[in-house]
């Protein structure tokens, strides 16, 4: 049919139908693009927060690893202290394997190590990722003699010799 033969309203209607279909396609395209964009944003956000979450978990695990390594060191040190001659001597004395020597000073014990006064009053145990099993550092108690004192002790216990 020739265009010239068409009536004016028919031409307008045809034009409107054509533009409405292209509009739908445009809207559809826009919707798809918007949806893709939104999905992309959601995906990126999810990745971002997941990454942050993993980062936090990673940080906690690193901290836990550090604590476990510290605990391992503490235990190693505790083992060494308990194997030290002075500790074995003490154990031997306790079990009656040897009589106590009055001139020998004791220089170590397995107790809390800190010399600072900053020790808070006892409260209920705080939760820790690592359960501590031993306090290990050697300390010198007030009763422990310094070497000068030890020397004096030695002099007191000196044997009587013929030249004396």
């Amino acid at each position, binding site marked *: 049919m020739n265009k010239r033969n068409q009536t004016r309203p028919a031409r307008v209607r045809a034009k409107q139908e054509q533009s409405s279909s292209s509009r739908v396609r445009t809207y559809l395209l826009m919707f798809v693009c918007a949806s893709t964009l939104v999905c992309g944003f959601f995906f990126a956000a999810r990745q971002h927060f997941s990454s942050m979450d993993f980062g*936090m978990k990673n940080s906690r695990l690193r901290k836990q690893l550090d604590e476990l390594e510290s605990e391992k060191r503490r235990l190693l040190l505790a083992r*060494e202290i308990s194997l030290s001659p002075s500790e074995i001597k003490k154990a031997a004395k306790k079990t009656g394997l040897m009589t106590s*020597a009055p001139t020998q000073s004791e*220089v170590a014990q397995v107790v809390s190590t800190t010399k600072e006064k*900053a020790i808070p*009053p006892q409260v209920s145990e705080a939760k820790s990722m690592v359960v501590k099993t031993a306090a290990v550092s050697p300390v010198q108690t007030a009763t422990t003699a310094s*070497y000068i004192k030890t020397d004096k002790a030695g002099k007191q216990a*000196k044997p009587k010799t013929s*030249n004396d």
Partner: protein
Amino acid sequence: MRTGKKAKRKDLRQVAFTRFMLVVAVFVLWIGGIGARLVNLQITQHAWLKERATDIRQDMKQTRMLRGTIFDRNNRTLAMSLRVKTLYADTTEMTDTAAAAKTIAKALNLNANQIANQLKQGKDANKRFVPIAKKLDEDVAQRINKALDTPDVKKADLPNFTGLHWRDDQKRSYPYQTMAAQVVGFSNAEDDGRAGIEQSKDDVLHGVIVKKLQERDRLGRVYDETTVEREEPSDIVLTLDSAYQYITEQALENGVRAAQAKSGMAIVINPKNGEILALANYPTFDPNTINEAAAENIGNKAIQSVYFPGSVFKIVAYGSALEKHLFSPEDKIDAGNGSITIADHKFSDHHTGQMSYSEALAHSSNVCAIKTGMKVGREDFSSMIRKLGFGSKTGIELPAETQGIVRAVDKWNGDSLASMSIGYEISVTALQMVTAFATIANNGVRSQPHIVKEIRHLDEKPAIVTQPQQTQIITAETAQNLRTMLRQVVLDGTGRRAQLNGYSVAGKTGTAWKFNAKTKSVDSSKYVSSFIGMAPADNSEIVVGVVMDEPKVGSRDGGMVSAPVFREIAQQILTEMNVAPDSQIKPETLVAKDIPEAPSKQIKDKPAKETTDKKSADTKADAKTETNAKPKTTQPPAGKDKQDKPVKKTNEKKFPDSGKLTALLQQRFELRYLVWIDKSNFET
């Protein structure tokens, strides 16, 4: 009419256009303003803004890696660092320091006024680090966190208290306390080595600072962490054996106390490879409580102090002569009437008449040693001194080693050769002297003494750092002859108290007067008594040197004071090492008769010439003592060490009888560390 309508429509369009343009203008101004502000912020203030943003989001955390560990040869830990925490206040975050101080003091059981002062001063100075409590253990830190917990405060880190934070720190621990303290040394609060291996190997042990870049969210939670990797500190394995070290220290302590000596040192070395198995000083200190240690006990006297070696040094004279084939051990030498004058200097002795060279060394005849030294001559004697390592550092991996005092030949006086032949006019360290004996024990091959066995990196194959440098100093024949002569010292001479049960011993006693810096002469009232020996004599596994400074009890000579300590050490260590016995000596022959050794010489130090009168007075007095102490029994013939003749015991008051001693030794070996002989058993 139509024209008016058109004009009205035109006006409306104009108004709409004007309005539109106004709106556009407003938007342009608005966006322009924002743009200008953005330009202003991003160009002129970008640095400040970037810093602020980084400050809020990022956190640079600096921690020091734990200092390397020091092990003995059996991987027993001698020094180790632990993580601890320090509580500090960031006063810039605090508003009311007085109230905070009150709460902190209550929680930490500290003085509130002191804390308040600290915080106030910090606040005034705008300090971000005010330490409250240092180096606390993890459990103590957790208790403090609990005590300081404030529910209203929202904070990412602990303790949940405004302005308070923890800083990671480290603390050095020495689990064996005083054991090998002078060797291991100590490090200060800043993790810097200050003595011993801690100082000499500080570059290896030192914990580097690690930087961690932490990204935080708005709540302060770490969501990303970048660590700047650094090479980790290495661990050090020493040649020391903690069991041998303990044995040596115990024996030395007992010996020093029994002799009431000022101090003592003992070294155990493997002559075949130069490894130091034990190195003890007494009195000692505990590096865990370094603030309480006496300063004079911190130094390692075995390598840092020099002394006149006395008769121990006679091995140089005899060794040089043997090397030059001037005599054989069985040849005779005439001690004359017991005195010899060299360059107007009279050297006296209590040994007279003819004797073999072996007997001369066994009885420590000064005249014979001087005659032998004179035969050798200055150049060869000096050459032997240098070759044996005197006058130069041994190269051991410990700080502040001294090289001793050995004068050049052209600066020797007329009687210097004679003096040196009997161990005066020369100053040595105990380690130099022990190394010289180790050379004899190792068939004339000198192994450089060393104490670091290996340096270990994390997860890597241990890197052996010390390949002992071995040098042939004297011929194997000379070394063999010297060992034969030194064997006689222990069998028939001044070192009888060094005899072991089941093992042959070769060694030499030495007793020298100390040099008095005030009078610039030797002081006849102060001795340095030593004994250095090797066992088994012909295939030595260990060489042990014991030096006592200023013994005050008994005759104070090396045979009385140091030889028993040698015996204590060598007997136990050889048994621990499972060395096969090579001798059938019965315990009854252990303590026989005493042949006291007098200080080698009645000399005055050359640089400050003392008056002849005083010198001769000293000589007479000492000669009298020597005469009194001279044994009247005849010597058993050389080479009869296996005859096991019970000899009448003397000085029973000072030492236990041999049967009891053997029983006690056996008991000690069975129970190892658990049962140790009471000191009084040794002494009474």
